[in-house]
């Protein structure tokens, strides 16, 4: 059983963006575009609540039958709540805070744990999640323009919407 500080599962706190649930989705994605990653930690009242797979979330927002434009202006916490069961972009953070030498089970569905090491960090019980969290996303519009963030759901270079196609660099 791996320990909480196992490099295959562990990511340092400074490598993952923490965003308040009240931040509008487009602003959160704009902040994320400065980092090489596609995942962020959603906090509520300063406490980490869940890990968000940004690719999946934007995909769900774009394909949502309700107005996707307004969702990009909505606080990210509300977007997650609005999508509810329709999205699998949210991974819960276990309330238990792990010590670096604690053993963690890898089974039981994807889950993220907070690790209380010197600088703090996150433990992903699914290595795929960690890999995804470290890959940058490029948002491609219907016209194949590549955007660092999806703004309000439309491209920066033409008036067409961001489609559900994403590329990882």
């Amino acid at each position, binding site marked *: 059983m791996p320990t909480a500080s196992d490099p295959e599962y562990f990511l340092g706190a400074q490598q993952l963006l923490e965003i308040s649930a009240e931040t509008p989705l487009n602003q959160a994605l704009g902040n994320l575009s400065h980092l090489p990653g596609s995942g962020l930690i959603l906090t509520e009242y300063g406490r980490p609540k869940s890990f968000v797979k940004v690719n999946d979330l934007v995909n769900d927002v774009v394909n949502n039958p309700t107005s996707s434009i307004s969702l990009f202006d909505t606080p990210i916490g509300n977007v997650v709540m609005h999508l509810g069961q329709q999205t699998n972009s949210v991974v819960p953070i276990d309330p238990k805070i792990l010590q670096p030498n604690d053993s963690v089970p890898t089974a039981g569905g994807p889950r993220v744990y907070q690790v209380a090491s010197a600088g703090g960090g996150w433990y992903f019980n699914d290595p795929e999640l960690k890999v995804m969290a470290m890959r940058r996303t490029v948002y491609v519009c219907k016209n194949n323009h590549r955007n660092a963030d999806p*703004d309000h759901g*439309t491209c920066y270079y*033409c008036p067409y919407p961001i489609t559900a196609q994403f590329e990882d660099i």
Partner: protein
Amino acid sequence: MIDSLLSKITGLWDKNFLFGSFLPALIFAVCISTTFAYVLGFAPVWSWVDTLTTYQRTTYLSFATLALIVVAYVLNALRVNFRRFWCGQSSFPPLLSWSVRILLEDWSRRKFRKMSRHLVSLSPWKTVLGNFEASVLSRFKDAGLPVADGATLRDLIRRTDGLRRQYGPSNVQGTLELVAKQYEKFEGNSLSEVFFNVKRTLIEWDKTEQARIDRVPTELDRQFGSFVTIRATRLGNVVEAHNQYCLTRYNIAAEMFWSRLRGAIRKEDEYLKIIDEPVILLDFALTMATLSAVYATLAILVGPWLWYKPGLWSLLFAFGLFSSWQFYEVAVAAARQSGELMRATFDLFRLEMMTALGRPHPANLQIERQQWGQLSSLAALGNVDSDKDFGLQSPNDTEK
């Protein structure tokens, strides 16, 4: 008795008197004497001074010093009147002040309404961007049209770079419509650089405008009290804004309880010194603004009778007015600073004042507001619902 008299005289030279009254009186006296010396000629004045004996010089100097102290003392007594005048509450001179006050209050109300409207406004640039995107989308073709050449791109980018937020949403939208029309002539993807330029600019403007709108509640809270307490001048409104703060937050009438609060925190000597500093500056600036206005009035009304030289007196009149305006601006800044400290003092020490007034610490803000309401009622009107409600016990209750 002599000790008491000496302490009174020493009290005259405290910082408050020195900066708030004596220094303005001295500056005013120097300005008036210099102006007179210039009118009479500096050389004859010096010759006259040279003819004086030591005894005469000492006598004149003593009289001048005494006169200066008397003027400073009078200015000190008039401070409240100066403050009322510059806050737009004075009724002097009767008819002029009434009409000017009505006009200025009306102007302040309009400014208040204009700022209040921004509380519910939204940035227009998001709509402009949406309209531009829709306009381009309706014309966008990715094949069958020529590709835009370098010169066209440069011209369009120059044109969009030349847009300014200050032109207003409708003017900007008009220009962007002309840019959108280029999508009828050229292949849409070849104009992506232009589109990017426009979108980035409009997003930046939207963020700037939104930040400005977000600041409006704070600005309004610091510049005005409420619509019913609008004053004719900026200074009056800033003072009202700070008085209203305690009323709206804690139900405390700031003017009434300020002296009681000072009494409750008299042990905090250093803190009291800090909150007194901007008040001294405010008094100095207001006295100087008043004396500058007096100087300007004397220059334009009395000056020409002494020496007919319109250019000189007009210049001195303008100098007096400019100086008065500048000191008024200093006073507004000092009032803001003083108001911020007053707000902080109520936030930090109001419960100490409540204890000093014999009331228990409230369990929550709602109860606190009720208690301050009762205390205000007692202080202003002498009304108490009942001793029990007010937390006072009758002697009989104590005996039991």
